[in-house]
């Protein structure tokens, strides 16, 4: 077999130039985080971080983002399976619809949720008649955050499903396994890396969600004021607190990325 190799000098030149750009990019990303750390009132850190408002917001953030990650998983797997495995005419339409929240400005998503599920929204009456009211509740915050972060789960699972060697599923079928057994015992274990990546991405996106939450669920202490909302609130009143909260978010996000996204980082 013959192969055309690019001239070595061309490759070497690109290999010298592009890493420089990559290095500059990494510095530009790192700079604001470092600035944040330098600006932080470390002396008051303990007091700021243990104030009731901060602890509340942190707890709420963990609840909302974890709830959104779980909900995204429950919705995301069926959607990803349908996109990856079922052939039907509207497949690209479905993909466009479920990925739309990714490109939609989050605040628009929040307003749209309000129009649909708000008290005077399209389905607000129906929900109220069965005793459900989403806006300005923690459940509402979970819905808003899920709306924005679920596409990350769907994308991750769909690419995971497309990467599976389906012969193993066929082997399981010849051993007598029906569809659900194949999914439970063959597909899900094989999908573990994609599941981990999906959860990490979804959870991280959920943790930082601001626009949709503030529009749909408002910023109520103990109910919907998650860390990002608390930061926004603090920006106008107590900049030191805002910076400390910001660093707290950075730390949590990095931890998630390192714990769950290990495979993504090292591949």
């Amino acid at each position, binding site marked *: 077999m013959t192969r055309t190799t690019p001239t070595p000098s061309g490759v070497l030149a690109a290999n010298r130039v592009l890493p420089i750009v990559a290095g500059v990019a990494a510095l530009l990303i790192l700079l604001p985080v470092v600035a944040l750390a330098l600006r932080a009132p470390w002396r008051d850190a303990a007091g700021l971080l243990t104030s009731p408002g901060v602890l509340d917001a942190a707890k709420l953030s963990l609840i909302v983002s974890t709830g959104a990650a779980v909900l995204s998983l429950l919705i995301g797997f069926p959607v990803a399976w349908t996109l990856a495995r079922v052939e039907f005419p509207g497949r690209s339409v479905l993909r466009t619809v479920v990925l739309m929240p990714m490109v939609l400005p989050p605040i628009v998503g929040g307003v749209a949720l309000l129009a649909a599920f708000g008290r005077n929204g399209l389905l607000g009456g129906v929900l109220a008649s069965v005793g459900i009211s989403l806006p300005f509740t923690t459940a509402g915050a979970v819905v808003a955050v899920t709306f924005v972060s679920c596409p990350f789960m769907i994308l991750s699972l769909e690419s995971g499903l497309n990467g599976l060697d389906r*012969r*193993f599923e*066929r*082997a*399981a*079928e*010849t*051993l*007598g*396994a*029906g569809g659900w*057994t194949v999914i439970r*015992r*063959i597909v899900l*274990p*094989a999908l573990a890396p994609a599941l981990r990546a999906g959860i990490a991405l979804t959870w991280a996106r959920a943790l930082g969600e601001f626009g949709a939450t503030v529009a749909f669920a408002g910023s109520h202490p103990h109910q919907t004021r998650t860390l990002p909302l608390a930061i926004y609130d603090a920006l106008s009143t107590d900049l030191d607190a805002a910076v400390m909260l910001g660093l707290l978010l950075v730390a949590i996000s990095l931890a998630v990325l390192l714990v769950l996204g290990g495979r993504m980082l090292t591949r």
Partner: protein
Amino acid sequence: MSLDASILARRGSFTLQAEFALEPGTLAVAVGPNGSGKSTLAEALAGLLPIESGRVVLNGRTLDDGRQHLPACARRVGFMFQDLLLFAHMSALDNAAFGPRSTGVPRGEARRRGRHWLDRLGVGDLADRKPGGLSGGQAQRVALARALATEPELLILDEPLSALDARTRAETRRLLVGVLADFPGVKLVITHDPVEAMALGERLLVFESGRLVQQGTPDEIRRRPRADYAASLVGVNLFRGTLEAGDGRVFVVLDSGGRLSIPGDGLRPGEAVFATIHPHSVILSIEKPSTSARNALHGVVSGTDAIDGRVRVHLDAGPVRITAEITPNAAAELDIKPGSRLWASFKATDIGVYPR
């Protein structure tokens, strides 16, 4: 208790056509070159490829009739894949217990069955290993145990020995023969290796370009091959022709052109026949042979193979292609190389003739 199959199956532009019946207890081997349709056959039987028309009936149960396709999980057809496809996240035992477990057998009983088959195949001590920690031969045994633990009515082994090195292969073949002898259902081995097919099979299904071209016992196929691949399987020259009488002699006029002189007892002129000549009955010489009783063809050497200490010489003699088997010494004396011009001669009495 039997398998009845009449299959028309399509995959892309490839079409498979085959009609055959297999009895339990008999080890059947489907053999053919790559792309001949034997893997497509295996998938159609296992329910991994729906057939277009025909029927597959196993012990009275219709598995497929071209309209209703019983899913693979309900067929009771065991399948050992060429690439084994052991589940990497499960131990050998969990792999072996997967089949029973999937069909509703309680966990403890499923594991007991899995362990029984691992023991039977001599890999019981590896029950806790993951497939990644098994050698090729060990993985092969676990895969076979996994297929057998489902207690299938039809067992298909796709290229069971081809992935193994020579030493493991001989050992695994012995084990395979022993285990298969005890297996009560219908059993079908898929292979591209003619030697393996002749050695293992009690009944052969010979495939060529999507067709089942011949079936029978190895002995039947050895004595009367009816297809080019079957002939190469048993290593004989196969010709197609029509009987003709003239000058007080009998000839086979070959479809490809040319004619062979044969002994003329009890044959009817005009009949379409096969003619076979074993390569070791073909004599090569540089000068034209003088004895008139011989058939003689003048041709060009197109290639040579070394097989078991003998040399096979392929000769293009105009429309006829013929293979001769000679000793390395003879090959050296004749100075044989591609392009050499030689005479190939053989006695009329060395030609086997039988109806098409």
